[in-house]
Each structure stands twice: as structure tokens, then as C-alpha cells.
């Protein structure tokens, strides 16, 4: 057992976990943050993506202990209170989700994609960048639309800040 201290969605937490515990299980089983999902065993599907110190990481690929001292943001921490993150709003407005299972990971990856590419996003880039997130419902059509829409919204939000 080890004690892992980290910040999750702005709150400092300290959790005793078995050394083999993956970050995703710390989040889901110990902190009840069940918005982060497990969709595969091989780090392919991306349903478990969270942000660690501002960068998208598959939380099934990382031991909880490796996140010691890190600043973790999960899907539950993305909105500012009642105000949805532009990416969340764009997924809703563009019907970028159906069953919702891949959605948290998809949104967390998409935020990271926009942040890394800034205003330089086009459809081909978004499709290429989403390679690590699998969706079985939407055929990606509306997810791609949502990411491009959110890229615009995030630019506007950034300019306003």
C-alpha cells in the first residue's frame, strides 16, 4: 500500500492504494469520480482520458503512484460551476455524443487537441488527432464538427480573457 497525494479537480486528496492501482481506478473506485470510463485493456480506446498538469493522459496507462503530486482534471472538473466548458457545449450542440460512454475521454482529448494546435485546426488534423479515442455510435462525423466548433469558441473565450 502507498499513500498518493494529488490534486483532483482543484481539491487536494490523499488516498491509500495498492501499489498496482491504476490512476483510473483511484479516480473511479476511491474518489467516486465515475465519469472517467474504462473501455479497453490496451490503452486504445481513450474512454479514460484525463488531464494531468494540463496534458491529456490515458489514466488506464498510469499507476496511481505516478500521479503523486500531480494536478489532475477529470470530466467532472471541466465546467466552471454551471458554465459548461466550450468543448462540452459544442459536443451537446453538435450532437457529438450518443450513448455517452466514450464522451468524457473524447472531450478531455479534444480540449487538449485544441490547446496544442490553437487556431490551426482543420478537419484532417482533428481526425488524425482523435486516433486514440474510439467511438462506436457516432461515426465521428459530429464529434469532428464539435471539436472544430469548440476550437472557434475557445479562441473567442481566450481573446475575451
Amino acid at each position, binding site marked *: 500500500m502507498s499513500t498518493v497525494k494529488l490534486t483532483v479537480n482543484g481539491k487536494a486528496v490523499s488516498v491509500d492504494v495498492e501499489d498496482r492501482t491504476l490512476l483510473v481506478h483511484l479516480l473511479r473506485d476511491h474518489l467516486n469520480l465515475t465519469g472517467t470510463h474504462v473501455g479497453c485493456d490496451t490503452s486504445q480506446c481513450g474512454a479514460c482520458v484525463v488531464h494531468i498538469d494540463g496534458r491529456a493522459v490515458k489514466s488506464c496507462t498510469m499507476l496511481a503512484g505516478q500521479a503523486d503530486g500531480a494536478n489532475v482534471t477529470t470530466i467532472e472538473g471541466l465546467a466552471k460551476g454551471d458554465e459548461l466548458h466550450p468543448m*462540452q457545449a459544442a459536443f451537446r450542440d453538435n450532437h457529438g455524443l450518443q450513448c*455517452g460512454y466514450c464522451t468524457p475521454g473524447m472531450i478531455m482529448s479534444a480540449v487538449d487537441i485544441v490547446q496544442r494546435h490553437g487556431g490551426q485546426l482543420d478537419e484532417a488534423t482533428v481526425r488524425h488527432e482523435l486516433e486514440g479515442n474510439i467511438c462506436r455510435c457516432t461515426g465521428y462525423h459530429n464529434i469532428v464538427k464539435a471539436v472544430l466548433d469548440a476550437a472557434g469558441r475557445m479562441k473567442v473565450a481566450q481573446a475575451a480573457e
Partner: protein
Amino acid sequence: MGVEGIGASVVRKEDKRFITGKGRYVDDVKLPGMTYAHFIRSPHAHAKVKGIDASAALKLPGVVAVLNGKQIVDDKVGNLICGWAITSKDGSPMKMGAWPAMAPETVRFVGQAVAVVIAESKNLARDAAEAVVVDYEELPAVANVTDAIKAGAPQLHPEAPGNQIYDWVIGDENAVNDAFSKAANVVKLDLTNNRLAPNPMEPRSAVADYNEAEEHFTLYTTSQNPHVARLVLSAFYNIAPEHKLRVIAPDVGGGFGSKIYIYPEEMVALWASKKTGRPVKWTGDRTEAFLTDAHGRDHVTHAEMAFDANNKITGLKVKTYANFGAYMSLFSSAVPTYLYATLLSGQYDIPAIHAEVIAVYTNTTPVDAYRGAGRPEASYLVERMMETAARQLNVDPAALRKTNFITQFPHQTPVIMAYDTGDFNASLDAAMKAIDYAGFAGRKAQAKAQGKLRGIGVSCYIEACGIAPSKAVGSLGAGVGLWESAEVRVNPVGTIEVLTGSHSHGQGHETAFAQLISERLGVPISQVSIVHGDTDKVQFGMGTYGSRSAAVGLTAILKAMEKVESKAKKIAAHQLEASEADIVIENGEFKVTGTDKSIALPMVALAAYTAHNLPDGMEPGLKESAFYDPSNFTFPAGAYICELEVDPATGKTSFVNFVAADDFGRLINPMIVEGQVHGGLAQGIGQALLEHAVYDANGQPITASFMDYTMPRADDLPSFKLSHTTTLCPGNPLGIKGCGEAGAIGASAAVINAITDAIGKNNLEMPATPDRVWRTIHAA
């Protein structure tokens, strides 16, 4: 149409919880004292279970129990069943081998469970499973139908000699033979329809909780049809009588058919909860999903089509071998028969059709209905055949289709289905216009100048949805009725709860169904809750599959609504001292037509529940229920055209354009409908280019993870251009046909027709990987 009524692209009410991480899926359920199950599964495709030694595992910390197949049989938990009886051409019933929830003696596919560990945590259960020793005696195995039907092949079930489940026929063989004897041209085609793994993103999961004092079970499960699960668990598996079993299917992360069935894992979880006196959770991992979720497709087919001198089709004969895997899954028998062979007429006027379907056991994962279920196989066959025929007859593929389209409705096909309405020319014309079919030759020439092979492929699909009149399916062997039920409750404050037997696992029912209420009453959808997925709340339901929720489930809601409206109008008329015939409903108000007198819905509702001043003899309350059984299947149809380029140096395919023109009848929420089509197209394209569940000759699965099985990714797919043509379905009052499976049914043939057009060779199996395409291009 109101702003939130029928036909409005309203954003989804359910989305907020999903985009904020507040969805509640089965694996999110935690109960006090909960234990965790881990299954011990066979690594062999076919073996005798000689013994199971759990003594070391039982000594490990946190292990509650290790239970095995002998115990579950001894406790008289029933074998898994197939609920649709099919009769062979010789009159004999289908031959079903026994399928216990865990194998007591013989395992017949890799991944079949032989025992289960119940422990205090997931990790402890996994650790203990490593310590359980199973002694297997390997038996010879067979993985494909071609080998399984050979003399001397390994035999799976004593009940099914020769591994044959049934040999079923449909149609008039003499009429077909007559057509072929007079044919001007005959076109022949051999096809394989590749096996798919369903892979909804949420793995299956079950949480079972037995309450000893009440002798009552609660099951949370990833189900598309919780009432059917309760019925089967109760009536056939002896888990508990229905009133002692509550089944809850909360948010479910995709199903596509694979979550229709009642699987061994939830049976074992329920049984183990009673045995251990503790709640039991099982959540599958992705490899377990590949090994145990019912697969789809896997047909080997030879077909021949006869044409007269005017290129009119005069006959079609088909022989299909369907791989059922190691056991007959719940609706497996119906898929290659009544969901496949009955659609072999496609969109065409074919006077004579005969089909023979031979269902075969192999040592592979069971196969059942998946995303289209039989109809993709039929559509792929018919549309590959039309393209092949056009090439052989040297006519334009679109023109050949138009020559043979059914244009008069209703149209009785020779294979049971009676198409009620449609306009196949309209959808093909719309698709041809959208892709500039006329300009293709010029584009092909341009591509050639750049060293690329460009192709165009058409696919005109039809499907039978709604699944469908109970009397009809009963006469064909179904073990259940396929109506739907609904209840509409207007609360005393005027808010509305709709309880539906349909189940939403991505389809957006919470929004689309509320739009009907908004349309009828003029209230905002925020005032309406759609309740589903809990057998303790909803009176009954047959669930969601076969694109049936809008055509059947929503019509049941409409029927209940009509009763509510009728009673509410009587109350309003009484309150307003007017005639019931003069009451109209507008914007949430009951108005006396031609006057300024009105009463708002909440006041009508309140009057219904205070019951101080109701018409004489009227019962208090404002809540009605209905069961709706459709009079026919529905027949969504459309035309898909794919334009693509093949790089002859690598065999790689790149999309240029993909257009879809669908006729779904009336659309409730076009945004949701288009989303359904996008997803289906991705599946159809995935089957054509990427996906294949592969076994080696000994029945070992080669593709049991996302590392090995190619799921379509965003960069494998194009953006789609969709359009709609509309003929309203006459079979239900809303005119709805259904949209959930169209893309998966129609897209594969368009892709393969386009690639084979590009490379100038007609024979190409799915998935058309770059390797396979390159070899086909360069084959002698």
C-alpha cells in the same frame, strides 16, 4: 411543428449528464458489502473439463467463494435458450445443444466460463483466479462452416449430428428453376460476409443483489431490454419468479444488438449473490467482450441471378451457410432466416426467389443479431449481385437498378415481406445528384492522370424494421410478442412522466419521445420526463432493437397520449361548461374553439386529482397506458453512393465522397436521425475495410483486443453527405419507418462496389484491407 415538436432538431436533454461525467452506468453502481466476480474461462476452443481444483484459491485472502459449472447445474439454474424456433426443410425442429451458464463437462469456445471466483475486490478475485487449476483434455476443434460440415469434422453437440442446426428453405424452388431455364443471362456470385465483434464502448456489466428476507433479487445490467431479461431469467433460467426479480438497465453505453441477450455472467452473478449472501458485481474487460459478446454476420454464400433479354431480373437463388458459433444465442436462429432471406428481394421486382440457409455449429463465440442483423448480409448480397450483373451485362449499374425497381405499392415479394410504400427512384436520384454521378467519368480520368484508381459504387438497400406484428412473428416461430407498451402520467401540477418499454442506450429517447408530448400538448420538453429501463417502474416492455423504438415504442406512447387527451378534454369541457367536441389543445391550454375561454393543462391536471368537480362517473387521476402492436414491419430504404480512390502502389483506399439518401418516413428529430445514420455508415464502412473477427483453424481467436481488431477511427472515415426523401409509413399513425441500422445495412456494398470498380476486378472479400486490395490488383 412547435419549436420542440415533431421535426425539430432539438439538442438532447440527456446530454448534460454525459458531458459532465454524471452518467450512471452499471459499473458505477456500488452497493454496501459488494463482492466482485472474476470468471475462469477456457483457453481451449474444445475440451473436456476433467477437474477444477480451487483449494489453493480458497485459502487466499479476501476470497468469498469459488463456484463452478457442476454446482450451477446441480442448483437447477436453467440452460441458456434460443427463443425462435426454426423448422428444417425436412420438417424437423432445429437442433439445439445444451448451454449451461458455466460448463460442467465440455467447453466449446475459447472464453467459455468454467468457474467463477467471488472476492472482496476486483484484484483479489483476479489473483485467486490465477490459483484455480483446471484440468482440461483438449478435443479437436473446428472454426469455420466449410470445415464444420465436412464428413469427419469434430462434432460439437450430440444433439446436432454433422454440426447442423437446421437446413431451412424459403420461396418457390420450381418457379426459380423455371426462371433460370428460360434466362437470357445468369450472373453468379460467391461471397463471404465477414464476422464482426460488436464492441459497444461500454463492456457488459452486472450487479446482482439478493435480499434473503424478501427472497428478492435486484439486477443492474447492461441490457437493451430489461423486461425481456427478467422474463427469460424467470421463466427459463429459474432464477426467481418475475415478481421477485427487479431488472434495472440504467445508462447503457451502446448495445447494437449485443446487449439484447441474457448472458451467462448475469445468471451467475444472480445465483452467486444468493449463494454467498452478498451483492456481486461483474464487469467484463475488453478481451472478455471479444470472447463472449455475441458476434455478428459470418455467412458463406453462393447466389445466382437470372435476367431476361431486357435485363429484367426473373429469378434469384441463394445458398447460405451461417456460422452460429458454439451455442445458439437467444435470437440467433431468426437472423439468417427471417431477418435475412426475407429481404433478398431488395428494392427489386423479382418474381421468383429461393433461398436455402444451413446453420452450423463451430468452436467459436456464439453469433446473434448485430447492428442490422441479417439485413446487412441480404443487402450486401443483393447489391454486390446488382453491381456484378451490371458489369457482366455491360450496362450502367444505376440504370440496371432503375430497370428493376419496384414502383407499385404495396408490393408482395416472393419471400414473405409485403413492402407497404417507398420511392426507390427518388432516393437513387437524390444520391446520384448529390455525388454528381454524371460527372464521374471525367473525375476518374483526372485521377488516372495522377496515378490513382478512382471508383464509384452504388448500394440501394431496404430493411424490415419495427420488429413487428406479434401475430406474424409468432407464426414464424418467435417465442415472444413484439408489441410495445407505454404509460403517460400527467402529474397534479401538470408535469408529465412517460414510462416506456423502449430502452435508450444512445438513441436519444429522452428527447425525441418528449418531442411527441410537446407536439401534442404544446408544452416545453423540459416539462416532460421519459422513464425507462427499470422493471419496477415501467409496466412492461420489449426493448430497443431492430430500429423499433420510434415506430413501435413511440406509437405506444401516442396511443396512451390519445387516451390522456380524451379524458383531459372531458375534464376541460366540464370545467369550461362547453362541449367536449369544441375543445382544442394549443400551447398547453385547453381552449373552447371560437371563444376566448380556456383552461391551462396544470389546472386540468389538478382538477383530475382533486376530483372535486369532475364529470359524473369519471375516475379521478390523469394517467393512461397502452400496448401497441403494429400491423406490419416498416420498410426504411435508401441509396448510398461511395466515390473513392485506390493507390495501386499500396492498395490503400481513400474516400472522395460518401452520400446517403434515406427514406425513413417521418423524422421526429432530424439531428438525432442523422447521428444514427452516421454511426451506421461507420459500421458499414468498418466492415467493408477494417473489421474482421478472425479465428485460426483450431478455434483460437486472433482478434481479441483493440490491438488486433481494427475498429474504425476518426481518420479512417470521411464526413458524410446526408439527405432524405420521404414516403410516410402507412403502418403506424406517425408515419415512422426507423433509422437505427440503415447505415450498417447499406454502406458495405457501396464501398466494395466502388473499390472493385476502381481496380477493375469484381472479386474482393471484406475487409478490403490495403494488403488484400493490392494482391487483388496484382493477381494474375
